[in-house]
């Protein structure tokens, strides 16, 4: 999978580094002082690099746990995110990571214990009863589980912190480590879902949507709290029919009692990020149709965004209670589309 592994000299002898290197016996090892020497330098081309990304093993320094942007949450007053990885195994054409980083290499921060400490610090300072910690903003929480043991490590950690909730955000079906253990009430496994008609073209290297639905159904059967993330909503031919069928397929498989939350997200990017992504993929129709810039953000024109949001909200509310529905904030949705 990885032919080249860059290793920060300071973590070369760390047991997690050694364990990772042992998994890739054939890979070439290249030393570096700081991962920034390789990752995100100028003169890199994300699209070219994505053809064969390398792995970087590094130490996360500085702030390890950050507050989420205002309005992003699934019911808590205090929401934080952390990234034990940067970048993703998958190659979703709408993903903001393409515009955020110059590099497509995958960075794994191996100092999990420092993340634990930072999370504990936030829990101690929390004013709300239950702060939420989101993993999977800058990566997929499960996709590299076979390499990182991330969920195993962090679920063990959160099993001792029942006053905080962890969300694992994923498109992966690597769920065997979750199925093998007792579910945690304070760990939400949240799946990102898009209608197959567009996922097949835009979500490169991801498991098919049908397999994701089966995976979330199995986890729900096992008792894990499930999150559904329809994010971003994408305008395309037959979008009404395709979203309706997607919701139907999900709720046909999912035990509704296991559902923790459902959220919608807009296709929305900071303008500079959108420009970088369009430069990488000038031939991509997704970046060509129905978009408008407003207040530094590029998203679907407000009438299109409103149609998408209203339709999906109305369809979803036929299946779920409004109390677990969390539409994401928007700059382009009209106020009358709010539930």
């Amino acid at each position, binding site marked *: 999978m990885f032919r*080249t592994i860059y290793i920060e000299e300071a973590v070369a002898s760390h047991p997690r580094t050694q364990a990772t290197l042992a998994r890739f016996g054939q890979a*070439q090892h290249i030393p570096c002082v700081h991962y920034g020497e390789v990752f995100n330098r100028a003169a890199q081309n994300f699209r*070219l690099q994505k053809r064969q990304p390398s792995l970087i093993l590094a130490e996360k320094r500085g702030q390890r746990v950050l507050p989420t942007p205002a309005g992003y949450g699934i019911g808590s007053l205090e929401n934080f995110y952390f990234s034990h990885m940067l970048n993703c195994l998958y190659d979703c054409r709408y993903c903001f990571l393409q515009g955020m980083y110059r590099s497509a290499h995958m960075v794994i921060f191996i100092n999990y214990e420092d993340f634990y400490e930072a999370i504990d610090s936030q829990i101690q300072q929390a004013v709300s009863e239950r702060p939420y910690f989101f993993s999977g903003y800058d990566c997929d929480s499960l996709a590299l589980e076979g390499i990182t043991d991330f969920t195993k490590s962090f679920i063990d950690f959160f099993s001792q912190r029942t006053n905080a909730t962890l969300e694992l955000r994923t498109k992966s079906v690597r769920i065997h480590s979750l199925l093998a253990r007792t579910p945690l009430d304070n760990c939400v496994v949240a799946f990102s879902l898009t209608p197959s008609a567009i996922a097949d073209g835009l979500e490169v290297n991801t498991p098919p949507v049908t397999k994701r639905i089966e995976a979330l159904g199995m986890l729900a059967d096992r008792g894990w709290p499930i999150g559904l993330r329809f994010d971003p909503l994408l*305008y395309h031919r037959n979008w009404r029919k395709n979203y309706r069928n997607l919701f139907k397929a999900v709720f046909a498989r999912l035990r509704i009692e296991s559902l923790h939350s459902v959220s919608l997200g807009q296709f929305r990017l900071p303008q500079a990020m959108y420009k970088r992504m*369009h430069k990488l993929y000038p*031939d991509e129709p997704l970046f*060509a*149709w129905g978009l408008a810039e407003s207040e530094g953000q590029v998203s679907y024109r407000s009438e299109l965004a409103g149609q998408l949001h209203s339709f999906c909200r109305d369809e979803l509310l036929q299946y779920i209670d409004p109390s677990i529905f969390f539409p994401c904030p928007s700059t382009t949705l009209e106020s009358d589309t709010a539930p």
Partner: protein
Amino acid sequence: MLYIHTALPAEARPILDHYALRMHDASAPFSLYTGNQVRLVVSGVGKTATAAAVAYTYARFADQPGPWLNVGIAGHKTAPLGKSLWVQKAVDTATNTPFFPSLTIPPPCDGSVLQTVDQPRADYPSDTLFDMEGSAFFQTAQRVVPAELSHSVKIVSDNKEAPWETLDRQRVERWISDLLPIIEHMRTELESLTAVWLLQRADPPYFERALSQYRFSQTQQNRLRRLLQQWHSVAPDTPPWSPDHSEQSAAQVLDTLEARLGEPSHLPY
């Protein structure tokens, strides 16, 4: 088109013969050769000469950009003479600055770190390659192409047991001849990456024609390029304007194009 840099004429000779390259311009400050698939520049020894030669060649052919490959001999503490090594990292030892090619093509041979030194040395202080050009090659080449398109491949010419003073031209030429299959492999691999890179940089269809018909400001040109790219991605087989279009100004052209682009018939997927 692959651009190859060598420091020495003896490093260049087998490549010139293999690709049937001819002298491009006898009055150029560097020996510059060209052919159908490859261009080659011989810089002379050292970082300054390397940087100048790469920059000169790029500027000379700025309208035909392509990947860059440094080919040459290098010392190594322990590797056997004649061993080929793909450079994974080059360090300018004078400043301790590292440069990293982006290793997105299949490895053509084993890899190594390269130390670029200012003076030849016979002590081989670390188990890496040693040369006098590599870091400058990457520093310059990565200004003109992405790191995915700038690479270096070396052949070990001297080591602890066989110091560089014993080198002669014939051996260098023989070793570089042995490298030719690797060079050709890299050329073909880099070709497919370059095609994507050139696509990203290309002006969209109808761009030049529109510029010749209307007066666009720089801001309008940027908008025109973006709109035509978008048009080409949703309607690649349809001209952006009807043959008898009657727009009077650049602004009208842009507004018309934007309106047409938003038509429901162009909805993707």
